[in-house]
């Protein structure tokens, strides 16, 4: 009896050991990979993730599944990525929110809880206004906002302390105004804010320009400027902030692929190579160009640096806006 137990125990231990040693690199990947997306299916981030996943499949020869874990302004999904086993089979599409949420006391997670693999996209903030609204161009907008009393105008596009809120607050500070001179109306995202903009409930939506595409194309909204170093290929008529008012202010939302902290460097290297090829593939580049989304590549090392830089920058803005906890 006892012997049989021992045998079972021994067999069990053996099985356990093999599973533990299982992911030992050499043949990585040998089973499907999951990419967790902290944002809803159908949105821009989700579409980006699905396209890069498809392109990665071609490189790795394994299925790459995209799973959406939405809600809580991205906290839910980002937590799920950080909590996953760092075996290289669960990755995530990490977005700029990871540089903002912890400053606001929403989560303890910071960029240090992830293993960066590569940055694949960067979308700059724009300045969208209603087509029949009071502003002709960015110069006019800045002037009017400066002259009118605080709180005359409002803006929307993300929740409180979301990326476009901070980007716009930073812009106002860059122009020498207080960050809350324009009242921020929290919204569930850029799409409902653009609808409100067209209905006349909101004055400014500082989301990325592609997010306002359908309203811009329907002639109900205009984009006055983009907070980027150069014009977008997909919106060549929208000037940069530099061209419009001579400021070199640039900001936006980055997206990249990362895994939980403590991934094997060899696995990271494999993924980095696969991602680079996927990033350069026609599948990915074609899709991003079609959508008007910005592409920007950073390898694991540079990506880590970017996260650190942006973290510091957003930390300052969060504090000045008065959202820091």
């Amino acid at each position, binding site marked *: 009896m006892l012997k049989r137990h021992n045998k079972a125990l021994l067999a069990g231990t053996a099985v356990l050991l093999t599973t533990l040693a299982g992911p030992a690199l050499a043949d990585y990947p040998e089973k499907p990979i999951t990419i967790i997306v902290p944002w809803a*299916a*159908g949105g821009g981030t989700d579409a980006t993730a699905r396209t890069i996943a498809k392109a990665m499949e071609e490189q790795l020869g394994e299925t790459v599944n995209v799973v959406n*874990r939405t*809600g*809580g302004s991205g906290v839910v999904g980002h937590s799920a990525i950080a909590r996953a086993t760092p075996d290289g089979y669960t990755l995530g599409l990490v977005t700029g929110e990871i540089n903002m949420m912890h400053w606001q006391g929403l989560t303890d997670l910071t960029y240090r809880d992830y293993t960066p693999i590569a940055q694949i996209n960067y979308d700059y903030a724009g300045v969208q206004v209603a087509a029949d609204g009071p502003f002709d161009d960015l110069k006019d907008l800045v002037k009017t906002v400066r002259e009118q009393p605080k709180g005359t105008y409002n803006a929307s596009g993300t929740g409180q302390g979301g990326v476009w809120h901070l980007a716009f607050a930073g812009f106002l500070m860059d122009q020498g105004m207080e960050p809350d001179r324009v009242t921020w109306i*929290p919204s569930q995202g850029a799409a409902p804010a653009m609808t409100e903009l067209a*209905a*006349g409930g909101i004055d400014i939506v500082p989301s990325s320009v592609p997010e306002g595409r*359908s309203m811009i194309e329907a002639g109900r909204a205009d984009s006055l400027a983009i907070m980027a170093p150069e014009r977008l290929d997909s919106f060549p008529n929208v000037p940069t902030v530099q061209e419009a008012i001579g400021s070199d202010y640039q900001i936006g939302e980055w997206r990249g692929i990362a895994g939980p902290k403590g991934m094997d460097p060899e696995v990271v290297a494999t993924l980095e190579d696969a991602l680079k090829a996927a990033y350069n593939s026609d599948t990915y580049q074609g899709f991003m160009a079609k959508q008007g989304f910005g592409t920007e590549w950073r390898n694991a090392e540079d990506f880590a640096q970017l996260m650190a830089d942006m973290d510091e920058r957003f930390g300052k803005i969060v504090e000045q806006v008065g*959202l820091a906890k």
Partner: protein
Amino acid sequence: MDAFLQGLALVFNFQTLLVIAAAAVFGVFVGAVPGLTATMAVALLVPITFYMDPTPAIAAIVTTSAMAIFAGDIPGTYLNIPGTPASAAYVGESHQLARQGRARETLGTNLICSMFGGLFGTLILVFVSPSLAEVALQFSSYEYFWLALLGLSCSIFISIGSKTKAFLSLLVGLLLSTVGLDMMSGAPRFTFGIPDLMAGVNFIPVMIGMFALNELMGFYGSRNEGRQVTAMHKDKVFTQVPRHLRRYWRNLLRGSSIGTLIGALPGAGADIAAWISYAMGKSRSKNRDAYGTGHIEGIVDASSANNSGISGAWVPALVFGIPGDSITAIVIGVLYMKGMNPGPTIFMEGGGLIYALFIVFFIANLIMLPIGYVAIRSAKVFILTPRKILMPIILCFCIVGAFAINNTITDVWIMLITGFGAFILARNDFPMAPAILGLVLGTTLENNFMSSMLKSNGDLLSFFSRPISAGLGIMVILIWLLPLLLRLYRHYRGTSRDHSARTP
């Protein structure tokens, strides 16, 4: 035109058509087994649609709900047990007809009326919603606040039974909707340190719990398996239908119009549409005495009304994101998951998806004819399926479905807890629809209120400062005051009559 062709291409492909056919069979089955409702069928379907493209996913939901509402008439006719609550209004009538040996004739008429009602509602959806969307583009947070409030008020006002219980049920839904990260303040509420709850209570598991688990428990609580088909006749299905339709075409049109309208009212679905149009038909009929003895007239009214209600409910769901009934409450969740955000912009974004949706509606109602015919011919199979075997299978679907949406065990717990809660509430005659509407619309209501307040610096009068907003506001207040006004009116009339009685 281009978008329309794209829509055609999205629908007329092998996958979508296969999904429609499968969903039709599934819908008939769920509808025809007593105790399984159309809402439950859709709730169970959602996790499966999760893995589909948007068009087949929506096609599956549309077809299943339309078929289930028709098929609910089958056990109603043979067993005097409504297959879904939407058939309850005229179940007695159709069972009387079955006892006279006219079961198939009744079901044939039901089928044609259901199909007509569904197509009628679809036409309204196709022609009204795009122009309504043009208007809705002018809507700001003030208008959406009133619309949400209007929806919630309607769900209580139009509910059957105690209004107090409906109101309490609504409050349960509203309470659940406050869980999660508050968008306005950025502060988490009622999350108890569980990261999954930051996203709020996911309402698909709640729906599965409230409509599927609740009914499962109800079944084991009651035990009425001993069913027998008393009247099984082999009369012709369609022979008598033209005669009935010629005679009662007014009822057909009236039932369809009432059904579409009631379906479009938030919180009131196919079941209430059937009750109201049945009552309306009866009150305006020349043969009022024949009602209840196996008279087909009322069936024409009600069975066209419940199917047109299904289509009508999509109008506010698509245009405003405000569900017209509990099925479209689920649909809104699915639309969001598929990146088709309900609201006026859904009609602006190209890609032919909206046309695909319209085409799907037509196909779903047309496919009802052949599949419904087969279902009538083989009614016995559905009716005598032992529920003892079905229920455990459904329980598995409930659990897998709740898990599959977000791959998280938290949702399974939410499903189990709300299912248990709903069972207790339902046993005490609390209606479930207001709770669901509260959960779905609670966030809309709160966020639009908050952002209006932020925009106007806390000026409450701003809710009446825009013309449409003021109009909607007055409508809501009138609905609130209606019971009071009615009571005053009755009181006044009552006393004046007393008065006249007393004066010689």
